[in-house]
């Protein structure tokens, strides 16, 4: 794979605090990298450094293997990139002119501008708005214009900084599908920042979790989502079931961990006697389905939270455990909870 961007020993300090500390980070051609983390983790700062929009205090940046210093070279590189931001700041001019802006900056001939802008306006379904002032658009329309504006310059690398966070759920979903189709078709290297981890499996081929200005975990989306590297990452990823336990036995491919008075069988070997943390995603827990002989616990539903398309249960099985289910369960109901051994992740 061809390396398009690389950061080396990057640091950004503000008011004596290090807000970004990236020893090494690479983006390869065609990759779709998701950067996730809570507010203030440094995601947007990392994106700006990658996009040559913010200067680091220390460290080096490489584009296609070439070390890039300040100056005109940066402008040349920036013109191979485009970005869509959370708040699309459209200018006080027509939709057409807003979409054409990047092409005007690159001094494209008027004929090319017309063809390209027309194509992207049609592709994103906003051709009918072309003469309207961009300031009069709805949030969804404005974000479409912003996406068209970025794609119009046919970037080699596309940066997305939480572009859908201000939009309502249906608009967000539609735009996400359209964007994925475009990015897939054109094989655009994409780096996107989000704190909505439901977008990750859909868009990303690689996921990086940021906490306190550092990348604390990077890997395939499923690996990060289901096997977090720490309890903090697990909590951020929406895993509610995190417990401390002690390894009681470890034989073959399995270990037994005592959590309060419950003995849980988990896949993988652990050091006997060691204190560990385990985490279980609520949607992997089964209700009234005894698929295994191990990890089947009887319990009582203490609370039911209606989440629209599913219910979240607070079940007492000796410890309190959160379970997501589409089944119709009522408060006070007695049931059986089964936790597949391979769905329990031991945090190292």
């Amino acid at each position, binding site marked *: 794979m061809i390396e398009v961007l690389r950061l080396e020993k990057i640091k950004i300090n503000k008011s004596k605090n290090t807000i970004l500390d990236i020893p090494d980070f690479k983006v390869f051609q065609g990759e779709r990298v998701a950067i996730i983390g809570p507010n203030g983790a440094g995601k947007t700062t990392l994106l700006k450094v990658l*996009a040559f*929009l913010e200067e680091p205090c220390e460290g080096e940046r490489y584009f296609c293997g070439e070390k890039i210093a300040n100056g005109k070279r940066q*402008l040349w590189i*920036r013109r191979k990139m485009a970005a869509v*931001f959370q708040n699309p700041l459209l200018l006080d001019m*027509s939709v057409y002119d807003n979409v054409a802006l990047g092409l005007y900056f690159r001094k494209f001939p008027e004929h090319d501008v017309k063809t390209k802008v027309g194509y992207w306006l049609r592709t994103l379904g906003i051709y009918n708005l072309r003469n309207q002032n961009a300031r009069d658009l709805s949030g969804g329309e404005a974000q479409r214009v912003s996406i068209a504006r970025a794609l119009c310059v046919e970037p080699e690398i596309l940066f997305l900084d939480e572009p859908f966070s201000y939009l309502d759920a249906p608009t967000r979903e539609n735009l996400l599908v359209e964007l994925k189709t475009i990015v897939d078709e054109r094989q655009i290297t994409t780096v996107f920042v989000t704190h909505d981890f439901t977008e990750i499996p859909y868009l990303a081929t690689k996921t990086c979790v940021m906490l306190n200005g550092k990348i604390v975990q990077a890997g395939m989306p499923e690996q990060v989502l289901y096997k977090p590297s720490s309890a903090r990452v697990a909590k951020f990823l929406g895993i509610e079931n995190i417990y401390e336990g002690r390894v009681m036995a470890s034989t073959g491919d399995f270990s037994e961990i005592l959590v309060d008075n419950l003995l849980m069988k988990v896949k993988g070997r652990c050091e006997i006697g060691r204190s560990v943390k385990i985490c279980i995603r609520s949607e992997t827990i089964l209700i009234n389905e005894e698929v295994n002989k191990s990890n089947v616990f009887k319990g009582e539903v203490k609370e039911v939270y209606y989440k629209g398309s599913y219910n979240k249960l607070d079940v007492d099985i000796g410890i309190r455990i959160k379970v997501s289910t589409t089944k119709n369960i009522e408060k006070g109901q007695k049931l059986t909870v089964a936790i597949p051994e391979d769905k329990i992740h031991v945090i190292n």
Partner: protein
Amino acid sequence: MNAILDGFKTAFVLLISGDKEVIQITWLTLKVCGTATLLSVLIGLPTGIFLALHDFPLKKIVVTIVNTGMGLPPVVVGLWVALLLWRSGPFGFLNIIYTPTAIVIAQAVIASPIVTGLSMAAIQQLDPNLPIQLKALGASNLQTVCILLKEARLSLLAAVIAGFGGVISEVGAALMVGGNIKGYSRVLTTAIRLHVSRGEFGYAIALSIILMLLSFTITYILTRVQQRRTIID
């Protein structure tokens, strides 16, 4: 009351007859105020933009000085410009005291902080993320500044209007550095002041009407430009 009525009558006659002196004073006022406003825009606009877009040590002090300058009393400016241009002063060798050039300098000093302060505020009112978004679209530094100016054009024109307002209404400095010499450095405000002191209210009223018309016309033109909205077919 009679004095006022007589004044209006005289003013009417002067305006209708196209009095040569009135025309000369009006033309000089237009030239002096126009040049002073242009100078203040040339100084104030880039300074305001620079202050809005850059951080540097002592920026707060510089901004405070600019903001203080926005309320500079014209007589104080007049005094200092006169001292500097006085024949024995540091710039006395220029021999421009009691000339229209001296008035232009004094008025530009009065208007520059106004244009600077309001231009800075105009750019700062824009979303702070706008320059980054423009750069992310491939804009060079110059292209970024041009777009920012275009986006802030309403407030920037308000800055120009305020600068022009400060210049055309000013009397103290023009009197001190221009000398109010008949046919040479007499502008509308200094002429009005002179005629009032002599009790020649007709002349004063006529000149005040011209001054108001001049101020209104130029401000109207600037306002038209300011309020125009680009609609692309």
